[in-house]
């Protein structure tokens, strides 16, 4: 049986170099095998030790679980220590990653835009110049755009009382506060 597929790790800021190599060895030993550091490991180190985030915050940034992040982080510490002690070069490459930048959602023109300059914070919406925008995470929001379920209405078939539907609570479990009847779901498109 093949192992479970690894979840793609999000890398916000890839390294600007391809690797590091030791210098000034006392005895020149024949070329040592480099240590491969994956992009996700570099990113874990950057988030945790450079940006000083805790494992939970960093795992959210990389869109993996906290335990997975901790494993990646432990692995990069081990690798870097190994490279230092054994004076081996490090190569940063490979890994199960995708590159993405921060995305924002503008409340004025309803557009989504990203921040191409990693070091400069976004101050206005790229399209309409409004300052009314929020951080937006594209992951796990596949159905975000056409998810109208949240706007459904619970209706009482007896007295016609309408109530905003709450996700996760079946309408058939809601009791009409006026006539104690069981309520029914009314979908938005039917409602129109």
């Amino acid at each position, binding site marked *: 049986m093949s192992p479970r597929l690894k979840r793609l790790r999000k890398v916000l800021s890839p390294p600007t170099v391809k690797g590091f190599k030791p210098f000034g060895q006392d005895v020149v030993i024949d070329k040592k095998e480099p240590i491969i550091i994956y992009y996700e490991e570099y990113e874990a180190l950057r988030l945790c030790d450079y940006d000083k985030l805790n494992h939970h915050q960093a795992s959210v940034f990389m869109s993996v679980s906290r335990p997975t992040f901790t494993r990646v982080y432990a692995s990069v510490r081990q690798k870097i220590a190994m490279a230092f002690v054994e004076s081996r070069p490090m190569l940063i490459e490979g890994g199960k990653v995708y*590159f993405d930048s921060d995305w924002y959602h503008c409340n004025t023109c309803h557009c989504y835009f990203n921040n191409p300059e990693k070091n400069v914070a976004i101050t206005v919406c790229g399209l309409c110049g409004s300052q009314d925008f929020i951080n937006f995470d594209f992951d796990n929001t596949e159905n975000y755009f056409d998810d109208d379920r949240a706007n459904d209405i619970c209706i009482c078939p007896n007295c016609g009382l309408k109530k905003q539907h709450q996700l996760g609570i079946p309408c058939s479990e809601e009791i009409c506060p006026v006539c104690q009847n069981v309520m029914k779901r009314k979908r938005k498109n039917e409602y129109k």
Partner: protein
Amino acid sequence: MKIAITSTGNTLDSTLDQRFGRCAFFVIYDTESKATEFIPNPNLEAESGAGPASVQLIASRNVNKVVSGEFGMKIKPIFDSLKIQMIILKEPEKTIKEIIRILNH
């Protein structure tokens, strides 16, 4: 600053094309000279690689921002490394004229 917009036709009344790689026309709008230029997309009929080829076309015009309805998984990293800002507008009925008006705020 130059902004690329994906368009379904070659007039200002055309609407925003929701696809990026296989849109009908690219509109290059210059915010300083207020000039618009319509470029027919040569990759419209391409079987594969339409997205990256379109990115090349856009990048060769020194564009700073791209407005479209959608950007694929292959394209996002390329735009990211080129430091071109992507703007996703999920409103297919918006015309190019309206978008330009919003851009001028």
